[in-house]
């Protein structure tokens, strides 16, 4: 079932490489070797997240459209997991901390929206962000360590989000908001609420 709101439904599409992700491996290596807060980081995954909002067709048709389009993912090397309700599971595994990074003012995908309109006749909103999934070794406060690694503040602190141009939000497995990518940071669950705070 696609979760509905008064102004339409929202569906999340989580896109992950089928093979090892070089970008996540590089980031993991740098974080573990050069950032104090990263020494206990045991694993790091990177997923692209799309949120489709508007009058959406049935789940099977959404899956088919995303599979067919070249604007969302490449099914030959990536897999797509749909999440249409906050009660559904997500690719975030138990024990993982999720850090969502969104380009401030650049989260909309006009090309994908145009493609969707052309294919379905329906105008929808498509937003995108990057989700980093962090798994720490046992012991210590995982959420706090994820928060420290999320935002770059100096050479030895943070990596995943440059707060001068990007917004971020944190969530743990089982508490993943839907929608997560709001139209503005103040509406983003778990996100930076005020200028100057992250």
């Amino acid at each position: 079932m696609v979760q509905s709101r008064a102004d339409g439904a929202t569906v999340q599409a989580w896109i992950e490489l089928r093979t090892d992700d070089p970008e996540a491996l590089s980031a993991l290596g740098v974080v573990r070797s050069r950032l104090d807060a990263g020494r206990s980081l045991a694993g790091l995954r990177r997923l692209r997240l799309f949120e489709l909002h508007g009058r959406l067709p049935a789940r099977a048709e959404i899956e088919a459209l995303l599979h067919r389009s070249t604007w969302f993912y490449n099914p030959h090397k990536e897999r797509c997991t749909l999440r249409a309700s906050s009660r559904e599971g997500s690719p975030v595994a138990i024990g993982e901390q999720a850090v969502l990074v969104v380009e401030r003012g650049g989260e909309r995908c006009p090309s994908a929206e145009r493609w969707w309109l052309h294919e379905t006749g329906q105008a929808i909103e498509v937003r995108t962000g990057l989700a980093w999934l962090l798994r720490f070794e046992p012991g210590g406060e995982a959420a706090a360590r994820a928060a420290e690694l999320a935002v770059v503040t100096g050479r030895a602190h943070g990596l995943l989000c440059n707060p001068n141009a990007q917004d971020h939000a944190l969530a743990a497995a089982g508490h993943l908001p839907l929608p997560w990518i709001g139209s503005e940071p103040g509406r983003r669950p778990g996100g930076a609420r005020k200028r100057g705070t992250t």
Partner: protein
Amino acid sequence: MKPRVAVVQFPGVNCEAETARALERVGLEAEIFRWMRPESEFARFDAYVLPGGFSYQDRVRGGALAAKHPLVERLAERAAKGAPVLGICNGAQVLVEAGLVPGGGAVELALARNRMPGRAGYYARWVRVRIAPSRCLFTSTLEAGTVLPLPVAHGEGRFTARAAGRVAELAAAGQAPLRYTGAGDEASPAFPDNPNGSEEAVAGMCNAEGNVLALMPHPERAQDLGALSRAASGPWADRRDARLEVALQAGAGRAAAGDDDGPGLAIFAGLARHLAGRGRA
């Protein structure tokens, strides 16, 4: 003995050779310093240039991973002692992600994704930059108001800050020595004169001391007069056309005019003049 400049190459950087050549043309000794060399050898240089390219394949963000490399920590130490540091394009991204520009160690700026009306992604063209009054040593041979034609080629080159007005504040303090400009004197040129939507039309930002410059255009690609865009106008284009005419009249052909000094060498000449006039940092 010529001053020695390290052209710092991280994996994925691809403009090291032409950058070294530009440094040599202004009388400096350039040496490509790759990321796997011992850190202990790093301090032996008088100045440092981080060339353009795609360090670590732009993974996470342009310059983000290289900014965490131990060599950048050594670079920060050398910069704090006054050693000149120039970051070009991807090198500029490294300096910003490392907090070396605008300085102080905190990451106060981003070189964010280009904002261009009706298009997105990587963008390459020749632009015009105007020299603003500053303490920047790299523009020290140029009078304020001078306009240089230089090429840009990037997808993430928009100077911006989380703190509203911070970029304007830095520009007012003389830390934006190069600003994009149009054909006239407009302070806020529109796309494509400002090719990425950079705040305050900043093309290059330096630290308060003026010895570290993050520059998005590529001066090393404008070291030859013959490389100048055919669409260029102004004194540099006039010089190119005049040189070409002389060459053609002499029967030397177009190529003879091509290797004359181009506008980009002025940035490296500023470094050479600084190093010639000062003791080692």
